[in-house]
């Protein structure tokens, strides 16, 4: 057998093996998370190696425990979900509100410093977040806003606005300027042309950008830890899970239910955004 045949035959066997192992490595921890969230702690301790749960062992009390408020003997995750949701949605709304006009300006309008501004915004991302965290921590402590969700919201907007502008600008660049020029001939002002022509065309990009921002804000940990740690009623889901996983009192299976609650919205959104993003890109290509 020649070297070529040997290699091809080996690859034919290896390829599915590699793919299988990668899928296993990527997905198994999430499967384990889901499985443990439906088991009882006693069951896990008695049989830690189980690869699937016993049917008679299955129960949903972990979810009730983790969601119930602290005063009812639970862990208060319902409250954390509300906090995370408020901060994430607020971040999306405010970021889009400032970033859409900004991206449009950087893409379309000639003004002094237009080219430099993108570089300035992006260069900020190469500073460690912890460096930025120090002065913000000091600042919000001094103005007495540390511990409030509003402070966190402002910081998140500042963190994602630049990337958001960068993503949206790339999309605006693909929309032909001639469309707006036609609108201008018809008597539209710049802002009208932007609102009525380019913005509707950019909707798929804006939607996927919104999901992207939501995911970042929902997943964020460092600033939530620094700002909110002393205010349990303001904890986000990420922070709540991290803080409670350090204590021995809360059963691991209950916290696994918390992990599922933290992860599930992101996974759902991720699959949605993949679909939308793909749709958006092809739609743009047809129109371009």
């Amino acid at each position, binding site marked *: 057998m020649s070297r070529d045949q040997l290699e091809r035959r080996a690859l034919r066997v290896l*390829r599915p093996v590699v793919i299988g192992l*990668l899928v296993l490595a*990527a997905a198994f921890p*999430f499967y384990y998370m889901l499985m443990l969230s439906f088991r009882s702690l006693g069951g896990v301790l008695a049989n830690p190696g189980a690869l699937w749960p016993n049917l008679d062992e299955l129960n949903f009390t972990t979810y009730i425990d983790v969601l119930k408020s602290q005063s009812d003997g639970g862990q208060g995750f319902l409250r954390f979900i509300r906090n995370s949701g408020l901060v994430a949605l607020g971040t999306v709304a405010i970021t889009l509100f400032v970033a859409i006009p*900004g991206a449009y300006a950087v893409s379309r309008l*000639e003004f002094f410093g237009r080219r430099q501004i993108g570089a300035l915004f992006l260069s*900020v991302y190469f500073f460690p977040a912890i460096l930025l965290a*120090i002065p913000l921590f000091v600042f919000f402590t001094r103005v007495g806003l540390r511990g409030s969700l509003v402070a966190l919201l402002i910081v998140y907007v500042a963190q994602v606005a630049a990337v958001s502008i960068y993503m949206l600008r*790339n999309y605006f660049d693909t929309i032909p300027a001639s469309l707006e020029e036609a609108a201008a001939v018809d008597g539209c002002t710049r802002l009208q042309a932007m609102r009525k022509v380019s913005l509707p065309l950019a909707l798929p990009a804006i939607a996927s950008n919104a999901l992207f921002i939501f995911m970042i804000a929902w997943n964020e940990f460092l600033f939530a830890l620094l700002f909110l740690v002393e205010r349990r009623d303001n904890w986000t889901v990420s922070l709540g899970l991290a803080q409670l996983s350090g204590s021995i009192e809360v059963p691991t299976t209950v916290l696994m239910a918390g992990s599922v609650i933290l992860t599930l919205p992101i996974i759902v959104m991720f699959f949605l955004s993949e679909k939308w993003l793909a749709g958006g890109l092809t739609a743009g290509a047809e129109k371009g």
Partner: protein
Amino acid sequence: MSVGHGAPAVERPAPQTRRRPRSARVKEDRRAGYLLISPTFIIVFVMVVLPILWTFSLAFQNVRLLNLRQTGLLGDYSLDNFRAVITADGFVEALTVTLTYSVLGTAGAIGFGLLAALALRKPFRGRGLVRSVLLLPYVAPVVACAFVWSTLLNPQFGLVNYWGTELNLWERPIAFLSESTPVSLFGLVDLPITTALATVIAFEAWRSFPFAFLFITARLEGMPGALEEAATVDGATPTQQFRHIILPQLMPTIAVLTVLRFIWTFNNFDDIYLLTGGAAGTQVVTVRVFNYLIARGNIGQAAALAIVLAAILAVLVFVYLKLFGRKEEVA
């Protein structure tokens, strides 16, 4: 972040409208431009640029959480904080750990990303789903990932230790996240890495390989197939084709990935804080900064150490670009 760094901004010709009142149009555009960009500019300037500058001011002053209210912009500036953090116990070790973590974490992420991209190159049924599944570690919340990993690796009831001892892969349960014994290579050489550090490196590779996978897949799809077909006709084997045709074309992408992943891993705080808290030989500089800030309440020293971290990173990236940046352009 995946879109945060693509090709450098394309220089587009200025929109030319050949209409009469040109200067009026230009003036209107300029005014609208400033108007539209200013909200973002103000937020980023006030919440990002000013704070970074302020960090420098804090780093040169004796600021603590306790005397925070008394310190202003103008205080007693000195280099004491820098002197203190650089000569402190464990600084050099933290730096070594950070470098080891960043280099091996980056290499691991890119290596597995490359492997995944190559394995998924040929279409097959269900490839789209497999791709999405492989991206899960990257999109899932870091807190949940770290919690599942630490449960999986738990010495008492973790699945990994159960099967590891059951199948005689190792004798006693291993405390993967708190053991500071060095990792030995086939029982022969002790590597300068603790078990816990190896585990957090594996975690970093696991969480970041999808990012490399995405980048490399995009590049592979843009590659013309003609070269490989010609090589097949000439009798090049698959590994020869990879070595001489595919890899050279991927090098620029891998170079960009290396810089990005290295920067992000170097600056990473969440993963190690959540997995080990910096114990058992995993204390990276960012975790140290956090400890200065929160545990000791020494804001000045925390700021100084953060600046040292950023400066070291800047030097490393600069050297890398000097060494490899030119070559890539020629290639």
